[in-house]
């Protein structure tokens, strides 16, 4: 491994930029992601920054079972994120549709159908600590030696 690569690995571990996109949730998971920002959980001490801008993001958080409006737009957002990138789904909705997975629903879960999902955090809603844990355990291992693996 080159020195440059090990430097990149070290830096990427401590600098994860997050964009979250709400594809039809009940807002419960949204506010738990926002709660991660609070000084109690302090997302930024781990080097995670919530920008909500896909162009500078590394990790995309997907919240909610996918509504018809988002079917094509989710892929568009995913394509805007520069490599290396990872998508993490928050809550039960992107996994199974949760309470909205009923015959008359308009949502079309899972989110896996539209973009590749690296990790899933179940819960309705998951606790802020679980969200932080998922980002911290998935992102550094995915981004490690990315240039070599490519």
């Amino acid at each position: 491994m080159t020195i440059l690569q090990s430097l990149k690995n070290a830096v990427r571990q401590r600098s994860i930029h997050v964009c979250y996109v709400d594809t039809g949730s009940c807002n419960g998971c949204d506010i738990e992601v926002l709660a991660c920002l609070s000084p109690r959980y302090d997302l930024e001490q781990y080097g995670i920054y919530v920008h909500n801008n896909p162009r500078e993001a590394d990790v995309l958080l997907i919240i909610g079972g996918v509504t018809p409006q988002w079917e094509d737009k989710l892929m568009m957002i995913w394509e805007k994120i520069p490599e290396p990138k990872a998508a993490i789904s928050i809550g039960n909705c992107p996994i199974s549709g949760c309470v909205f997975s009923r015959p008359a629903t308009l949502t079309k879960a899972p989110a896996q159908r539209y973009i590749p999902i690296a990790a899933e955090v179940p819960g309705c809603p998951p606790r802020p600590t679980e969200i932080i844990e998922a980002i911290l355990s998935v992102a550094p291992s995915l981004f490690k030696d990315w240039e070599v693996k490519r």
Partner: protein
Amino acid sequence: MRKTVDVSIPLGPVHPVFKEPCRIKCETFGEQILAAEVELGYMKKGIERIMVGRPWQEVMFLAERVCGICSVIHNFVFIETVEKISKITVPERAAYLRVLANELDRMQSHLIANFSYCYTIEHETLGMYLLNTRERVMDMLEYLTGARVTCAYIVPGGVRFDVDSEDLGRIMQTMDLVVEETHRYREMFASGPLIGLRSKGIGVMTKEQAEHIHAVGPTARACGIATDLRTDHPTYQRLKFSPVVRTEGDNFARVMLRFDEILQSADLIRTIINTLPGGKIRGGGTVGRGETVHRGEAPRGELTYRVKTDTHGRVQEISIQTPSIMNIEACARYMIPGVTSVADVTAAYISSDPCIACTER
């Protein structure tokens, strides 16, 4: 022909300050906003369609997931609607505990709304302080109901769990802390010169305009309309509730009104803890057939449920009217047109505390 519109600027659906997807189309002349239109439809899940034909036990949990921020009030109003249909009475202790949970929920909702506003005008320090105070309130909600967000605390005929004196003492202690902190942050918000520049006189809506567009909740109360459905609720009447009203009608007034309501909610919680009657927390009863309309005051304004059930308590028809749709219209029609820069569009929009998830359901 004279040119009146320079360029049409779309904001959203994925935007750094929007928690939820929606698109605001602004027609601008220079930096001046002439007109605005809010485009919705990114969050339509069809909850009312799912609810039809299902028993109330299932609809109760769906009603809670109409809106995750103010989940307790959706639970509260839906359960009160089925109780009104089936003439179920609630023990006095349970009625007080319901209001306790509802006021804790209102406090956390207002705190996150004020956080969003501070974040939008890029005063992150105050926003983070508020978010920390909100965590204290969320802890108390968890102590009382067992969950942070979707609690399902209220059931027909009463509430799920009782509280003991230790829990009440802990809530009382936290309220003292929250009130002290809220007074401090309210003073910081009121006296901050840069906050004043971004807030005072921006996004103004007069009382006549608010009446015309049927604004509800804190947005209407900040324009001088004393509308609050809590005044019609029997438990709140016993607690001698009276709404807070301000008259300026700008961004500053809406945020300050929410600070005042947080303090008012803390006072209500203290009164409830001091006067909490003993007795049972569940009265029992079965949900029967009927049709009715019931209203309640959500953190964002008037919330209406119209429910029709059959003899087994299955929901045959349901329609929900949530407060944010009125406030979003008020925003697009009166608050945003006339602001002098595009940066103030998001500030005016966020100050009315829109909740897209419950608007579209």
